[in-house]
């Protein structure tokens, strides 16, 4: 494969990891949502590039879905929710930002060390894409556990889905079923989330998960 094509693919995949790091240190609601829009934009560029170099036109659909739904529709909707609920204020992470970033670096190192040796036969493209994709997935998990706030947990989850799309497109020739399913599942997930956010609003006037914890079903 053309060296330039590979380099550009890696540029986008690496860029996605970088944006995942940016998600980790956002301390305002609007900042998180905007960074997520950037995350989705990078993933859609990456998928479109894969479609171009793999001559797989169906991947353009996946790229378009990522662009329209995740870079525009969902961020706009989340902005609406934030404005309506009046939660622009800063959000309190469970652990300090410095520590979270260090943990993130550790996770990226881990995924590179796990993926590179065992994917030696899978071809250069898939190999490094998978290492990056696993990093994005792990960083998304880190984001979900380092934030208490419902909106940022949801964004963490969606960034995991972006990482999975990166992995799925890196696996050459993977049938369309999966790409559609990923996009589809995000839509469903959004419905669920929407329902939840509004129900949570009805009950608590807040979307801070920490307050939900007071309603645990069982006291020790």
């Amino acid at each position, binding site marked *: 494969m053309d060296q330039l094509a590979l380099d550009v693919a890696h540029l986008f995949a690496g860029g996605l990891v970088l944006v995942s790091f940016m998600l980790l240190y956002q301390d305002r609601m609007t900042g998180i949502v905007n960074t997520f829009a950037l995350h989705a934009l990078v993933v859609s560029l990456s998928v479109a590039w894969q479609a171009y170099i793999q001559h797989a036109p169906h991947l353009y659909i996946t790229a378009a879905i990522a662009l329209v739904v995740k870079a525009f529709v969902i961020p706009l909707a989340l902005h609406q929710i934030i404005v309506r609920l009046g939660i622009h204020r800063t959000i309190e992470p469970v652990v300090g930002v410095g520590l979270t970033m260090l943990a993130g670096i550790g996770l990226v190192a881990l995924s590179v060390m796990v993926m590179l040796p065992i994917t030696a036969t899978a071809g250069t493209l898939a190999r490094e894409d998978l290492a990056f994709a696993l990093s994005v997935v792990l960083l998304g998990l880190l984001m979900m556990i380092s934030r208490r706030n419902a909106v940022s947990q949801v964004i963490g*989850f969606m960034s995991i889905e972006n990482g999975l799309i990166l992995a799925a497109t890196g696996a050459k020739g993977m049938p369309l079923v999966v790409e559609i399913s990923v996009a589809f599942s995000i839509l469903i997930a959004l419905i669920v989330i929407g329902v939840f956010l509004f129900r949570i609003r009805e009950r608590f006037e807040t979307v801070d998960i920490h307050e939900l914890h007071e309603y645990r079903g069982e006291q020790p």
Partner: protein
Amino acid sequence: MTDLGAIAVGTVLTIPAVAAALLALLPDDRTTARLNVLATLMTFAAAAVLFVERPAPGRYLIVDDLNVVFIVLSTFVGVTTSVFSGSYIAHELETGRLTPAYLRFYHAMYQTLMFGMNLALLSNNVGLMWVAVELATLTTVLMVGIYRTPAALEAAWKYFLLGSVGIALALFGTILVYLAAHSVVGEGLDAMAWNVLVERAQAFDPALLNLSFVFLLLGYGTKVGLVPLHAWLPDAHAEGPTPISAVLSGLLLNVALFAVLRFKSIMSANPAALAPGPLMVALGLLSAMFAAFMLYRRHDIKRMFAYSSIEHMGIITFAFGMGGPLANFAGLLHMTMHSLTKSAIFFCVGHIAQVKGTQQMSEIRGLTVSHPVLGWSLALGVVAIVGLPPMGIFMSEFLIVTSTFARAPALAVLLGLSILVALGALLLRLNGLAFGEPLGSDRPATASFVPIFAHLGLVVVAGIWLPPVLVAWFQHVAALLS
């Protein structure tokens, strides 16, 4: 004649889908609950046909010896649960815990859940199966949160987060399986089809398979409720409507376990890959022991039986992890018996909680005096679930422990210990619940006893006499798995 089988497969999938749409559209009155029962009954009938006639494996769907057991079991429990759900939901409407609009939503979701589970069991494609499991997860999330109390929302949120992280890990594992397969099988749908994967697995790259299995076990293991990924399970069981607790314990956990088993057979087909057994044995044993000790500290009746489900899923995972014809046979039997018994217990518990107006065990007492039928059914169910003879679970647990003794005595001791600990906890609680001076309301329960009797009857009969046809069938499947 393969045509009949193909029609049956189509019916098993289309009836729940059509019924879901219909139930979502129809105005809400008593007929919807009946329609729900009718739809599940028709699905069960179609599934039963698959025992006799089955179509050739297609590109997306497959019926083989393994999944037909799961399909028939899950459609059967689907029918009985829908009968129970009819009387349960009628009571919830009377007391105003659910509004008619939510009832419509509930029935539509119930059928969507059935569709998701049937699709997951029938799929011949790792990607399609993943989509189906995700669909089933999302519908149950919505149903767990249906009461909209703070506790229900907390439970649904926790379930949603842990479930989706699990499902995300499983998708990553699925992609890795495809990567391992596509260099051997070639690109396209074939590299995701079960029958092709298992056939050609010996040529796959073992390192990729190993990594994929770790992700798949953790991902689907979250849905099975294996410790330490079980945190969602007790909350989801305790706060959702009881029919959903019954379906979760009886069916959805099995479906996730089925996914693990499918991938295990791919792993076993590759001699160079990591043996999947020890991982499953370790997780299974950990779950069984942890849940057994946690049983002692429960105050909420549904939560207690949820922990008991974790314990039993641990035992089943342990049995399949041990492998070999005998342990696999025992695992299949235990899975069937656990589904039947646990859903029967939840049927009882649902009516009890409605009559008493509480789920706190300290406020429920003397059930055999105030509600003899419910009380004795619960007692029978608990006696069955703890594994006392002559019930079916006694037989399967006995087989698991003895077959383990022959191969790894230390593990058998640990497993036996956790079974005994759980037995102590459940009998202790049962004593308080069922006997003594009645406490709380003693108005008669408007219950449908048919589902409870049907399940418990089957469990008792299976403990005394298993039909030779069934034994031969289970042995055949067990041999296939090992």
